């Protein structure tokens, strides 16, 4: 089989074309939003938001039935935004340590989701799809939702780019410039929440964190400005999505896992080889 045939063969199946488009979109989106997750060290927060979607989906399954994918999406979206704002609120109060608060919300919501889902017959299949994704089952309607909400997230990032970077780098400057720092912080959490829900079908909850963090971190090693970190991260994310899906097609590996493994492989490569920050490089000072 020639390389060309190797590339083209999966495209005979419409479900593969839809899956490739979805993986590329999600790979790019996760990496761009993930840039802020990495720069603000909110990986744990992102993971918590991802896992907290489960009770929303479970409620959707109970209310609308598992066949109604559209309403599952809305339930997931509503829950994730609420949880993101809730976690933001808890962490600003400061009565308990932030990571403790996140951990409690995270585990509590996940347990609630599993408890709710377990009342549904045959819940194991639903749970597997939610946890590990179901990219081969992406419909045209799903693609439209991914594109619409992913586009909205990107638009917000572009519009508020300099404010989001500023509050990530130096919230104190934001305060002396009298910017609404807390509003931008919450906006960022909501963007992460929407990204998680949009990406759910491609990578699943359990591996979501990897897509938010791995391509962005790889780009962090390779670049020196936020803008280029986002661009390079998006490229790596898209490539991971596409390559991962091809590997999944030919080697019959779970697609979400394959995508994540490609992203992690790219990260390891960068970690070893980067000119300035890699393991094989000694910085001049510090």
């Amino acid at each position, binding site marked *: 089989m020639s390389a060309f045939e190797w590339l083209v063969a999966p495209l005979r199946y419409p479900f593969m074309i839809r899956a490739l488009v979805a993986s590329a979109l999600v790979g790019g989106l996760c990496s761009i939003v993930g840039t802020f997750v990495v720069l603000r060290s909110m990986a744990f927060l992102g993971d918590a938001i991802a896992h907290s979607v489960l009770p929303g989906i479970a409620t959707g399954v109970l209310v609308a039935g598992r066949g109604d994918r559209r309403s599952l999406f809305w339930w997931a979206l509503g829950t994730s935004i609420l949880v993101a704002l809730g976690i933001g609120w808890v962490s600003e109060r400061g009565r308990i340590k932030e990571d403790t608060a996140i951990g409690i919300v995270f585990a509590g919501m996940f347990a609630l989701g599993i408890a709710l889902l377990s009342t549904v017959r045959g819940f194991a299949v639903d749970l597997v799809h939610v946890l590990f994704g179901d990219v081969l089952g992406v419909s045209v309607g799903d693609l439209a939702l991914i594109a619409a909400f992913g586009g909205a997230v990107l638009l917000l990032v572009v519009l508020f780019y300099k404010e989001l970077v500023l509050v990530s780098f130096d919230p104190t*400057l934001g305060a002396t410039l009298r910017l609404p720092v807390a509003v931008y912080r919450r906006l960022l959490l909501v963007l992460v929440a929407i990204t998680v829900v949009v990406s759910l079908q491609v990578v699943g909850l359990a591996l979501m964190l990897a897509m938010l963090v791995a391509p962005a971190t790889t780009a962090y090693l390779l670049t020196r400005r936020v803008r280029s970190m986002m661009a390079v991260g998006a490229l790596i994310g898209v490539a991971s999505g596409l390559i991962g899906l091809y590997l999944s097609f030919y080697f019959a590996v779970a697609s979400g896992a394959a995508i994540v493994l490609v992203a992690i492989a790219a990260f390891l490569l960068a970690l070893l080889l980067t000119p300035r920050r890699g393991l094989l490089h000694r910085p001049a000072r510090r």
Partner: protein
Amino acid sequence: MTRKDEAPVATRKIVKRRTRASVVHDANAPAIAARDLAAAYGDRIVLREVTFDLSAGAHLAVVGPNGAGKSTLLKVIGGLLPWVGGTIRVHGHAPRDHLCIAYVPQRSDVDWRFPVTVTDVVLMGLTGRLGPLRRASERDRRLVAGAIERVGLEDRAHRQIGELSGGEQQRMFIARAIAQEAEIVLMDEPLAGLDVPSEADVLALLDRLGGTTLLVALHDLGVAAARFHRVLLLRERMIGFGTPDDVFRPEALEAAYGGCVRMVRTADGALVVHDSACSREVP
């Protein structure tokens, strides 16, 4: 808004500031006026009995042992921390009403691996003025380049910030304050961890910030005495405010440092003597 048309300083501000929120300075009020000011973290009062007037353009060194409340005082003046007692007025208004205050953080509080260049950081000083949705114009970029040139970092303008030396990092933040058109600059321990030449560079740059009201938290009493017109000595409460000669008297230093520090005036300036026989740790 209080508007004083007869005051040339105030009218100039109206032209210069096209922004929201910022108040017009009361030309008759001192740059900073504190009366029995107190501040707290949670329920714990960390600073009290601070009373002083600082005129516009004055350079003040805020000195005292660790935990004396130096950073706290700067944060209250910058409008970053609410105060719990007394009053604080900046050009006649509450600190939070001002856009003309720049705060330079301690170097240890900055993520130096953050992927931004010197130009990016200085440009951030304009974010409030630009407002959301707008990008920097050619004119804004020239302003930023000018500020970077004023601190002598033009050959470092496109370096990632972690590649700078400690002194250069401080100068970058001073450039940002210049770009911000700050009239009051608050600096938290700008000399901490700098070598002697870098320290001299930063101090020389501060001397050239004419017209800017400057409040600098410092560890080094000698630098405070030699380079600042006004000093404020703190240890959870204000121990003294005035010229270095007035403030750095043995009884005041004893109150602040517990008798471990003496200051000797010499022809070249002040010499600070740490009493090594005094083993009591400064709290």
